[in-house]
Structure formats: C-alpha cells, structure tokens
C-alpha cells in the first residue's frame, strides 16, 4: 500500500515549472540577501540598541576630560602661593621615590 500511496501522491510533472515559480516568488528575498552581503555587515538589534548609549558614553567621557577635575580649587594668585604648590609637589615626589627605593631594596 505504501508504494501505491507514494505513486498516488507523487506529482505527474518533472517539477521544473514548480521550481521556476518558487524562484520567481523568491527573487525579491534573494536580491535583498545579495545586497546585504554586498553592503557588508549591518547593525544588529543589539548594536542598534547599544549605539545611543555608546555615543552618550563617549560624549560624557569627552566632557570629563575637557572639564578640570577640581574646578572649585582656586588658581594660585601670587608667585609665593605658586612656589608653595611646587614645593609640595616636589616633596611628594621625593617621598614616593623613597618608598620606591625601599621597595626595590627589599
């Protein structure tokens, strides 16, 4: 019976016209796929979602770099104040040098 059923269900044509009809209907989708390959990778859904956040993060980073870290600290107004600040920096540097040399010695 299986063989009879198979013969009953098998189409009488060679399938060429059917295949042509499918390819005709698929031509738009196939062309879209070829175009997508030619144009290279496109933004995925995740990338589309992440893009504004990425741009916002870059903008914030740029602002953070441009704005001084302690804008409320007054600039030294006199040469004496400036000299004190320099001394403090030099002192701090020499202390760290000591720490470094001790560490290396150990």
């Amino acid at each position, binding site marked *: *019976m*299986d063989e009879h059923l198979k013969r009953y269900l098998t*189409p009488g044509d060679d399938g060429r016209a*059917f*295949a042509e009809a499918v390819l005709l209907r698929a031509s738009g989708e196939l062309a879209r796929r*070829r175009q997508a390959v030619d144009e290279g990778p496109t933004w995925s859904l995740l990338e589309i979602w992440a893009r504004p956040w990425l741009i916002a993060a870059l903008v914030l980073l740029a602002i953070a770099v441009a704005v001084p870290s302690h804008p409320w600290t007054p600039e030294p107004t006199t040469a004496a104040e400036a000299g004190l600040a320099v001394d403090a920096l030099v002192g701090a540097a020499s202390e760290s040098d000591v720490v470094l040399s001790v560490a290396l010695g150990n």
Partner: protein
Amino acid sequence: MEPDAALAARAIAGDREAFGALVVRYQEPVRRVTRAVTGNAEDADDAAQDAFLSALDRLETYDPSRPFGPWLMRIASNAGIDLVRRRAVRVAQPLETAVASAGRSPAADAEAAEIRAAFAAALAELTPRQRAALTLFDVEGYAHAEIARMLRVPEGTVRSDVFHARRTLRERLRLYGPEMEA
C-alpha cells in the same frame, strides 16, 4: 553532489542557483506531503511554494550540523496544515499523477482511476495532521520521533495518527486486492 548545508549557506547569501538546487532536490517530497495534507493539487503546490519561501526566510535558523530534510518537511507539513485551516474545505478530488494513463488498456485505466478515487476518499476521512503523519512515516520514511518533532506533538500521538490512518486506508482499499492491505 553539493551537500544541503553548503547549498543552504550559499542561499543565505542570496545565491539563486543554490536555492534553486535545494528546491529541485526537495520539491517532490515536499509536494507529496502538501498533496496528502490538502488533498488538492492546486492548494498543495501553493502550500509547497509557501513552505520553500518560508524556509528561505528563516534559513539562518537551520542548523547545518543536522539534516536539511526534516527541517524543511516540518515547515512543509505546517504550511499544508495552515493552508487547510485558513481556506474553506474543498471537495476531495483524486490527484492527477504520473501513472494516470501511461499507455494502458481502458480497463486498467478505469481501475487506476477507481484506486485514485478510493485514496482520495480515504485520505479525506483523516485529519490534516493524520495525513501528514501517514505520509511522513509510510512514504517519506521518517521515524515516529522525528515526525513528532516536525508536527510538534507527542510521539504517542504520531503513532496513534499513523495507526488510525493506515487502518482507514486499508478498509477503504480492501476491494483492490491484498497488496493494498499490506
């Protein structure tokens, strides 16, 4: 012969020749299943075309490490069943087949026509899912478990569908000799 997975990969990139090769390779089993499910050659080819287009749409979901046939047959069975659900029920007509009148005597032709009518009547008694299960099992040779995955039903349901469908066909075709009861 180029493997299905390679053809599918090329079709994903829009290769018309590769997609055409897949259509030619699978058009016969796909059309057999949709003919069984719809019981009508015209609707069957519509459903089969829809199945191939749907397969093209979701080719990215095909796992190339697995066989292409069952993946496609799942889409085809569902395309046929969906079409039957969407459209009004048509009167089952015997399908036109290649062996309809291949230079035989009028008596043999008459008997062949009777057998086709009996097949059409028997298949019309079954549900679309039973027709799909019967064809996938008896004609296309898939296992119960594979058919269950294709039709998204439990394996026991597939076994029951195939059993019921075979019994119906056997009863309807008993008149045409013992070979129809096998």
